[in-house]
């Protein structure tokens, strides 16, 4: 008999966004019961890897107007301005809450919170805790969440399906990774906080768990994925592993050099970063590095060509104090000591600007379903996210969605359990059928590799019509081939092969929306640089893209951008 668990609000994801939503929900109404479902223990969530910082106006020389404008401009005018306005206003109180909850923010001599420079930000507004900001924020949130008995954790439970009945979401089906059972976790509101999808690409800063699950779950229930073509390449990843070297290195004064020892952002004004140099926005710097490598100015290494990030002039003391994790990472994973040697780096897939289409409350078009954090697109990042905005985004919109989900849950009835139970039984049977499905002619790793290769060649830093088209075709084929993957592990206990197979289907769905949306956008804007259409074209493309799931193949649509405060203008730095 299928086990059915009941809560008021079900949150899928225990990263910064999910934890903040959970805390906001129980604070909004102490009577509410929240299920926090996560496929890994919350402290393993990939928020943990964020290094550089979280943005919020803190200094006298700063203002909401400036943070808002920087964000809008960074988004290449595709961010919704009402959402951005709310974001910049709520950012300081949210980071202050974290301070009250114990986050060990780095400090100025007078005991106030220290801030550092970040790319595309006009002044120092990035709060930091050395260079382990995501780690400290996540652990602070997780530890603080333990105060609340009404947050009930379901650790190592993999959500495989949203339960939808009568046009509203009513809960989730979750595979208990440790036992192999599929259960129903019911709630009158469900918040997706499942993070990004960097693993759709071969070379990424993202951890193994970032497989776009929540995006795929919503997509398959008819909710649109928005602005998926915008994939952020971070300029500075370690060749080979893709491990991130934070932008804070450049915030603290790090410089980029090519093989000729030329500081190319300075010597070549055509890269468009103006006087910001290394503190230009990520899309522009990634393209500049890419072009340097194309022009033969890269340095040859085991994992292809790269350029140098030089921190040696900053001195050991500063590096040890502000960037200790960078020292550890470079020494352990690149074999170089940044105190005396430049770090080899190249652009690497980092962040999804797109995600589940939501409004400013995090609400989707499916009644009761919310999405927050990297899996969502409230449209504050538009075509290019500014570094250090997303950790804050997780808090600001996590909190708002948490409160709204409580409101929704209180206004809705439980409905009948029987149809939901039936859905979960079907889901359990489906998953049982997958377990150890020896027949099948495809190999999981082969299909996965072909998917990531298709994404790299079709949806990389520079994109061409022909390669994007061939990526969409490859992905459609891979989706079919995925149904024929042979699985060998028959055990019910901690079967990670079955989890990987379910994740692969999710990634292919998400990857397909990226390629489809990219092909439609015949212009270059933010992170989407299209070789045949190098300019931005506001007349035809100042709109969000939406991709809907249809059994026959993805359907494309668009949506207006909320403007009004800052007029679109040429994006020059």
């Amino acid at each position, binding site marked *: 008999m299928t086990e059915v668990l009941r809560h008021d609000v079900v949150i899928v994801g225990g990263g910064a966004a999910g934890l903040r939503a959970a805390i906001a929900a129980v604070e909004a109404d102490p009577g509410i019961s929240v299920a926090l479902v996560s496929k*890994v223990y919350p402290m393993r969530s990939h928020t*943990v*890897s964020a290094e550089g910082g979280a943005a919020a106006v803190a200094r006298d020389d700063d203002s909401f107007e400036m943070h808002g404008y920087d964000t809008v401009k960074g988004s290449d005018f595709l961010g919704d301005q009402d959402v951005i306005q709310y974001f910049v206003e709520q950012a300081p109180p949210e980071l202050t809450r974290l301070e009250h909850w114990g986050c060990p923010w780095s400090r100025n*001599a007078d005991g106030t919170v220290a801030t550092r420079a970040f790319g595309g930000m006009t002044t120092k507004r990035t709060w930091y805790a050395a260079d382990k900001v995501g*780690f400290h924020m996540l652990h602070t949130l997780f530890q603080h969440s*333990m105060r609340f008995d009404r947050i009930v954790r379901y650790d190592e439970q993999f959500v495989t399906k949203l339960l939808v009945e009568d046009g509203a979401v009513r809960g989730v089906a979750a595979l208990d990774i440790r036992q192999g059972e599929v259960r129903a976790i019911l709630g009158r509101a469900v918040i997706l906080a499942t993070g990004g999808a960097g693993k759709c690409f071969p070379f990424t800063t993202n951890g*193994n768990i970032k497989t776009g699950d929540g995006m795929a779950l919503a997509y398959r229930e008819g909710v649109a994925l928005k602005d998926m073509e915008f994939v952020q390449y971070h300029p500075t990843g370690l060749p080979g592993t893709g491990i991130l070297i934070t932008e804070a290195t450049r915030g603290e004064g790090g410089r980029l050099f090519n093989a000729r020892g030329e500081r190319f952002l300075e010597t070549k004004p055509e890269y468009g970063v103006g006087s910001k140099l290394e503190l230009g926005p990520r899309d522009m710097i990634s393209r500049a590095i890419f072009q340097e490598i194309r022009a033969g100015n890269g340095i040859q290494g085991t994992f292809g060509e790269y350029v140098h990030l030089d921190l040696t002039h900053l001195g050991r003391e500063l590096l040890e104090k502000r960037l200790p994790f960078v020292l550890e990472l470079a020494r352990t994973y690149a074999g170089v000591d940044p105190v005396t040697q430049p770090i080899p780096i190249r652009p690497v897939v980092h962040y999804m600007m797109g995600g589940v289409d939501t409004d400013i409350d995090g609400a989707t078009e499916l009644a009761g379903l919310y999405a927050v954090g990297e899996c969502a697109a409230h449209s504050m990042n538009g075509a290019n996210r500014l570094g250090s905005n997303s950790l804050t985004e997780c808090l600001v919109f996590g909190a708002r969605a948490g409160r709204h989900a409580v409101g929704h849950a209180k206004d809705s009835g439980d409905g009948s359990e029987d149809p939901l139970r039936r859905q979960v039984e079907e889901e359990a049977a489906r998953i049982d059928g997958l377990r150890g499905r020896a027949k099948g002619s495809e190999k999981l790793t082969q299909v996965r590799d072909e998917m990531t290769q298709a994404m790299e060649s079709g949806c990389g830093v520079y994109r061409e019509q022909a390669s994007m088209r061939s990526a969409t075709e490859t992905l459609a084929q891979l989706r079919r081939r995925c149904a024929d993957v042979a699985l060998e592990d028959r055990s019910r*206990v*901690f079967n*990670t092969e079955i989890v990987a197979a379910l994740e692969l289907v999710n990634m292919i769905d998400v990857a397909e929306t990226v390629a489809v949306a990219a092909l439609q956008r015949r212009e270059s804007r933010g992170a989407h640089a299209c070789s045949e259409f190098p300019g931005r074209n506001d007349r035809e493309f100042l709109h969000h893209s939406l991709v809907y799931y249809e059994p026959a193949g993805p359907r494309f649509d668009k949506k207006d951008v909320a403007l009004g405060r800052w007029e679109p203008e040429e994006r020059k730095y």
Partner: protein
Amino acid sequence: MSDVQKKTFVVTRFDPDRDQVPKTQSYEVPVEPDWKVLDALNFIKDHIDPTLSHRWSCRMAVCGSCGMLVNGEPKLTCKVALSSYGDTVEVAPLPNFPVIRDLVVELDGFMEKFEHVKPWIIRAKERAVEDGPMRQSPEELEEFKHFSMCINCMLCYAACPVVANEPEFLGPAAIALGHRYSLDSRDEGAGERNRIFRGEGTVFACSYANECSEVCPKNVDPAAAVNQAKLKAVIDWAAGLVLPRRAEE
């Protein structure tokens, strides 16, 4: 191809669905010079035996998922280089935890210990958001900062001789975490935590073997935290004898 070298991995396997006791299985893996132990396990999983179960995610030594016993020592497998081992590498699950399967151990017991130390800021009166961030000098931050670096990788529990004998022992990471909050200038919960630390199976159970600090991949030095916590718990208790009400506040 870069110089392909082969190493033999002797991996502990256990599937409660079919095994009575753990067994070992050997795999020959072509390894790259820059690989970590985790890379080899992922190679086995992807190309040799998809039934192998192990946990990992960040592969950058910060999520704490990938702790295992490598040639008899607790290690973060994404951080230790394969080049530091010979031709044969033994990989087993962390000791002092029940095994769920293969290299995956049960953490629920630890999560309870973790919650037990009240790892959050305790204040008599919570500060309003409108009042802004609290002040904390860089020196006050230094007091607890390194104890806040724990990634919960469990290597210290695997190394601890006391945990081996008394599974109920609160253990290094949990004590260090509680102590971290007590040392935080923003916190007023030291009294409560000292009471917890005076309970059975906590700080005084520690034999100060120092193994925990030696295996810690993040230099948290939990042994120092346990020692300091002991002292604080005693002083607090002694002060309570003189001023009985304070300790109970």
